[in-house]
């Protein structure tokens, strides 16, 4: 080992020294320009939201492994390090300071809007670009030059959904049930705004907590209003429980919601019969949607032995964009990397990415329906 490594170490030392002495150069950046490029992936690996974090990490890891196998960035390998934020904003801010102090050029994650929101100011000050999987409109509202989303915001999801349900299908009696967490509240506000712009007032608007298990009271109140559509703004498991209990209570309304309802977790929690016909707004409907998604899902299956889904796909897109930008900056971080990410035009799994000033790169979702436990594309009306 040692004899083989020594010349490389010596060579890199020489390169480093010469780089340092070059006039007009920022010595700090050049000093690390030969080692691996350090990229942090921060996602929940434990706690309530760890399933999201695990999916995201797999998507990111797949993209980085592929890039490294293909020779890395300008001959340098990407070193991907995973940190567990436990889905907790406090842990997230600590990790943000940690990666800022340890020379990471970029951060991928987190899957939680609340955690990303907490980390954003620190990463902005440290000049570390962050591509997040969060989709709360609050992230875009920050307008941080260092924060990018790898998916549309709730506004896009719910605008597409309202267009399909109200304009396309002509439903007017719409009830809402959503939780008061960051995601649920974002969905609630976005869908309500989309309804308002169509002069539709919901006939019921029930709020629950993210941890609630029994929805009898809210759902019975909704049932009495006999809605055509029940909009659900909650994460995977809670959406599934709401769907199951709604059907058990004899609620016949069409169930509609965002990406969480397009997952297996939703369908199995609700039961396939109860989930049947659910309307979903999602930028990634299935692994068979395109040639790119087929290739992605095959590599994902081969690497991790499980089927790919939305979270892995969007994390993969985000990582691809970062790698592309790193190639542009030749591995340098800071503001040049953020600008390079904004300039990347990526034909990804979720659509064509073109970032605007608020860090949102995708502005469209599609409508899917749950049929026999599987999500199928519906040509949006």
């Amino acid at each position, binding site marked *: 080992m040692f004899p083989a490594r020594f010349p490389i170490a010596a060579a890199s030392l020489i390169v480093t020294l010469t780089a340092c002495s070059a006039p007009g150069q920022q010595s700090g950046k050049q000093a690390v320009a030969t080692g691996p490029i350090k990229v942090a992936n921060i996602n929940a690996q434990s706690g309530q939201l760890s399933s999201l974090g695990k999916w995201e990490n797999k998507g990111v890891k797949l993209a980085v492994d592929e890039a490294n196998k293909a020779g890395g960035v300008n001959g340098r390998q990407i070193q991907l390090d995973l940190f567990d934020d436990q889905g907790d904003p406090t842990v997230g801010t600590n990790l943000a300071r940690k990666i800022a102090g340890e020379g990471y050029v970029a951060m991928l994650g987190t899957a939680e809007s609340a955690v990303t929101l907490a980390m954003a100011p620190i990463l902005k000050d440290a000049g570390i670009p962050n591509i997040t999987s969060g989709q709360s409109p609050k992230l875009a509202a920050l307008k941080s030059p260092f924060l990018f989303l790898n998916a549309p915001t709730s506004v896009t999801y719910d605008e597409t959904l309202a267009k399909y349900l109200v304009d396309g299908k002509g439903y007017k009696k719409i009830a809402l049930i959503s939780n008061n967490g960051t995601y649920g509240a974002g969905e609630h506000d976005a869908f309500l705004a989309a309804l308002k712009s169509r002069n539709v007032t919901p006939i019921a608007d029930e709020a629950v907590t993210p941890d609630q298990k*029994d929805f009898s009271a809210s759902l019975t109140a909704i049932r009495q209003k006999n809605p055509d559509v029940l909009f659900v703004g909650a994460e995977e498991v809670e959406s599934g*429980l709401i769907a199951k209990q709604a059907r058990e209570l004899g609620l016949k309304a069409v169930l509609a919601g965002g990406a969480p309802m397009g997952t297996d977790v939703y369908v199995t929690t609700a039961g396939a019969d109860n989930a049947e016909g659910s309307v979903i707004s999602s930028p990634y409907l299935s692994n068979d949607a395109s040639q790119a998604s087929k290739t992605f899902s095959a590599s994902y299956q081969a690497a991790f032995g499980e089927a790919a889904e939305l979270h892995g796909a969007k994390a993969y897109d985000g990582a691809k964009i970062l790698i592309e930008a790193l190639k542009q900056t030749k591995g340098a971080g800071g503001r040049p990397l953020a600008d390079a990410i904004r300039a990347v035009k990526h034909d990804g799994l979720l659509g064509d990415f073109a970032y605007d000033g608020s860090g949102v790169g995708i502005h469209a979702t599609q409508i899917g329906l749950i049929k026999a436990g599987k999500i199928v594309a519906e040509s949006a009306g």
Partner: protein
Amino acid sequence: MQVFLQTLIGGVTFGAVYALVAMGFSIVYRTMGLVNFAHGNVVMIGAYAASNLYMFAKLPFPVAVAVAIAVTALIGLVIERVLRPLENKDFDLMLIGTIGFGTVLEAGAIRVFGATGHAVPSPVATAPLDVAGIKIPTYSLLVIAVAAAATVLLGLFLQRTKRGAAMQAVAMDHEAATAVGIHVGRSNAMAFAIGAGLAALAGGLIGPMLYVNPTMGGSLGIKGFAAAIFGGFGSMRGAIAGGMAFGLLDSFAAGHFQEYSELVTFLVFAAIVMVRPTGIFGETTVNRA
């Protein structure tokens, strides 16, 4: 009226499960004066064991739950055995020990079963009963019936059998119990095993109602613990009453206070405990700590 009755049914179903969890907390507390903070995590292990045996080993649901009870009872015995040297020596360390066991169980479950979890199909796949517009899920009836049966059996065990009486004796005065030849360690072990078994029963039953994942023990544990305090910590009757009260409180608060339901539930809980610190059926027998 319809909303009221429907909320009542939802509340009673979850109340029955909270009661089982609360009984597990109480039986260990009354015998050893110890709060087993790993209890919620044992509920989770029970849910995993029962659902895995039911879904993947294709055992009939009752058999799967029975095996899960045996498995977790064994875990209960292990926890008690490890903590036994501390009994009557360092109480704080024992408490921290149970917290540690809880963390180990959760981390172990993530390691073994993965972080994602799984949904469990209902073992009674029939349409809900319709009584004058009130829908009663058949599985809810099963849960209530099983919880009631378990409660009766446990009551009979504690009052009618020699071992049960011995456990009562240890709960009342462990020194006197030792003096009349009762093995306190064995009695404690039994309490832990029964507590863990009850946890597995609760976990097994709640699996098809919720979603089985490594962190499900957290909120179930806290609500079960609160229910036990509510009813009078250490009292079996209290655990049942507390569990039911908590289930109902939770459900009705959800209807009336929407997103503030959790806050209201625990505010009411705090108010009642302030007025009556010993809970509904507070007993004076338990004073070991």
